[in-house]
């Protein structure tokens, strides 16, 4: 049986005062896109740095393709492409020189792969690094991570700073990499982002893994706050909305209706079909709101049990 792409057992990094990462047990199978979801400061980057052998865990172990992340860190890096949470400074070096410099540490950069990736993201490698916008720096990070076609990609908030078009291109690239046999471990604090790209999602909060969910469970967890404004001569179809599956917390004030939608929007759209809607706004809740909702449900379930 092939070794897991990533395996951690009781992985901990204690920074004191309750900060850090605690007893992370995680398994990412090969050729899977695994999202690591959590709010800022939850321990995502700490986990990733432990996997990259950059920081030593206080306890527990981490293995990549069966290799110990601390003891065998050089061998691990041969199998990994990495986008850091924040791209560093390379001053007056040109993008092409940064690629050559870091590519040489892997025995040389694949010129065709670099050209293809840079062209795909419209990244001009002849410009100096300090002239790059934050989005272009992030694109360079993506080029550096993907250029040697590694079997595992560890990406720390890889879409930070990318515009929607490049984000879409990035997710296409991730899917292509997976289809070519690569495993992808990417962190994010945006639920819709991991939902779009990942097969499974690990949710981390305050340094502890809360849940590992597949896409179905994610759909159950996620919800939207929706505001619907009806035309002056239209009565909001409140009974139909209250009866609609997944539509909750329906409140009406004059012609403005607010509600919460879990899962699919279809029941909501069915309920308002035939009514004249002048405005419809859907807000994705923050991760903190999601967690509060998630824990509220857990508490209710525990009480009812």
């Amino acid at each position, binding site marked *: 049986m092939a070794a897991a792409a990533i395996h951690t057992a009781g992985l901990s990094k204690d920074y004191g005062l309750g900060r850090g990462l605690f007893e992370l047990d995680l398994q990412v199978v090969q050729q899977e896109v695994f999202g690591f979801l959590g709010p800022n400061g939850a321990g995502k980057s700490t986990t990733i740095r432990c996997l990259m052998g950059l920081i030593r865990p206080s306890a527990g172990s981490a293995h990549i393709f069966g290799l110990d992340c601390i003891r065998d860190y*050089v061998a691990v890096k041969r199998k990994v492409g990495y986008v850091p949470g924040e791209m560093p*400074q390379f001053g007056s070096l040109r993008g092409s020189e940064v690629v050559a410099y870091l590519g040489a540490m892997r025995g040389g950069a694949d010129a065709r792969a670099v050209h293809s990736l840079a062209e795909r993201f419209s990244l001009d490698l002849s410009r100096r690094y300090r002239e790059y916008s934050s989005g272009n720096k992030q694109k360079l990070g993506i080029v550096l991570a993907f250029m040697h076609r590694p079997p595992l990609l560890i990406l720390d908030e890889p879409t930070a700073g990318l515009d929607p078009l490049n984000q879409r291109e990035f997710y296409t690239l991730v899917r292509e990499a997976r289809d070519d046999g690569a495993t992808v471990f990417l962190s994010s604090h945006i639920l819709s982002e991991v939902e779009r790209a990942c097969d499974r999602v690990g949710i981390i909060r305050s340094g502890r893994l809360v849940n590992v969910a597949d896409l179905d469970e994610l759909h159950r967890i996620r919800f939207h706050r929706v505001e619907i404004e009806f035309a002056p001569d239209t009565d909001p179809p409140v009974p139909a909305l209250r009866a609609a599956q997944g539509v909750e917390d329906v409140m009406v004030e004059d012609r403005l209706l607010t509600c919460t939608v879990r899962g699919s929007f279809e029941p909501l759209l069915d309920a308002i079909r035939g009514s004249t809607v002048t405005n419809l706004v859907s807000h994705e809740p923050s991760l903190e709101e999601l967690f509060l909702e998630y824990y509220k449900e857990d508490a209710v379930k525990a009480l009812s049990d």
Partner: protein
Amino acid sequence: MAAYLLALRLGRWGIAGYGATAFAVALLQAAGFYQVAGHTAAERQVFGRSMSLLAAQFTVLVPAPIRPDTVGGYVQWRAFGFFAIVFGVWALASAGSAARSDEERGIVPAILAAGKSRPALIASRVGAFATAAMIAALAAGAGLLVGVATGGESISAAATLGQAVALVALAVCCFALTLFIAQLTSARGGTTVAGVILLGLFLLNSLSRTFDGLVRWRWLSPFYYYDQSSPLVPGGRVDARATLTLFAIAAVVAVLAAVAFRFRDIGSPLFSLPVPHRPASYDVSVTPVWRVPVLRDLYDRRAALLVWAAGVAGLGVVSVALTKNIVEPLLAIPGLARYFAAFLNGNLFSSFFDYIWFGFAQLLLAGFAITQVARWTAEDSDGRLELILSNPVSRVRVVIERVVVLALGALIIAGVSGVAVAVEAHYQSIDLDRGRLAEASLLLVPFTLVFGTVGALLASRIPRATVGLLGAFAFASYILEQLGPIFKLPTWVDDLSAFKLYGQPLTTGVDQTGLVIMLAIVAAGLVASAIVMERRDVGA
């Protein structure tokens, strides 16, 4: 007020470092005076005459002393003349950072976004630096008062305060000039251009002491106005007009800087040439040097290496010429023999050159090592090391490559300067043993590595404090080596200095014991830093 306090906070390490240095130098020079000047009036007069003759050879750096037979006159010359350079360099670095580096780091946009006006930001920066310079200048004054007290004498506190104010006026003037120049240039070029202009203004004043043709232009130099005050000398005073002129120049130039800042784009100079359009390139660099370990790092810092090699070689050449000018008159002064006996051995030319040039070259190479170590710590703090270590390279290899790059850099600098010195010595008809000159030049490499490996160990353990600690180590080593003979310190205390290990290879040959100790320190430092680097957290 918040921007002013923030500027002070950003400069707190500068205040601590320059303040401590100023205090220590003033204290040691004042206390050292009582060790070398003698105790009777006659002894001091002889000493004063000797110092005046000696100082006449160094007027390209500091003005000739007035009454060096007194502690005030001696410290005015040895410490406060030197402080003009030190505070000028501080002002240059600090203003360069305030004007453009903080802009690149996002500090300036954040302050402006908080509602601070651009002129107010410039005013807060100038005010904060003036405060910082005043603290450091007062520290120098305190060092002087304590040093004089060790000799059982006293010096006017008002005169000391006046000297501090004159020093602050010069520093603020240099700060404002740099601040203004940085508005006109690219972010990277600001400090360099301002440095060249300040150096030009410094030389204009100092060379005007030798070349009469420059006298009518020296009013352009802020250093000229600083030289007008000599309150520490008996009967001396602060030249109020000159000091006010410095403050007035600072005020006018700061206003110009504020106006230039008002009209330029953040991230751009006030005037810039349009960039020609060129098609985008998606290709990796084909320059082969990027593929060769060590060579790629040398290539990456080629401009800095070139400047270091040319600068050190140039100073070596100047030292040869200075040595000839100094030694010939000195040979006729028997009174100086006792003063030099503490430092020099054998042939006076070789000894003097060994003492002057290789003493200075050690300081320069220690500085070179510190700049390279600063680069390592910057790689750590800005995340470059994290990205390097995301590649299949071991941490031990990173440490070794860094030290090898430092060794090769030092070798290039020492080699170029050694050749330049040999050529100039031949041209000046000075008989220097070429074999020993080569040995002395090459010995600078392990000497540099002593600082480099100590720095590597510090950078592996406590990267944020590394530059400060290594600078303090270099300064303490240098001061110990310079003042040990004056204060007649025990041999074991002298031996603690890294500079002592270098010895006087041009005069007495390579000190084998010193070389072995240096190599042992390098080996131990390398092994220790590799071990610490293997175990430390990166990017945490």
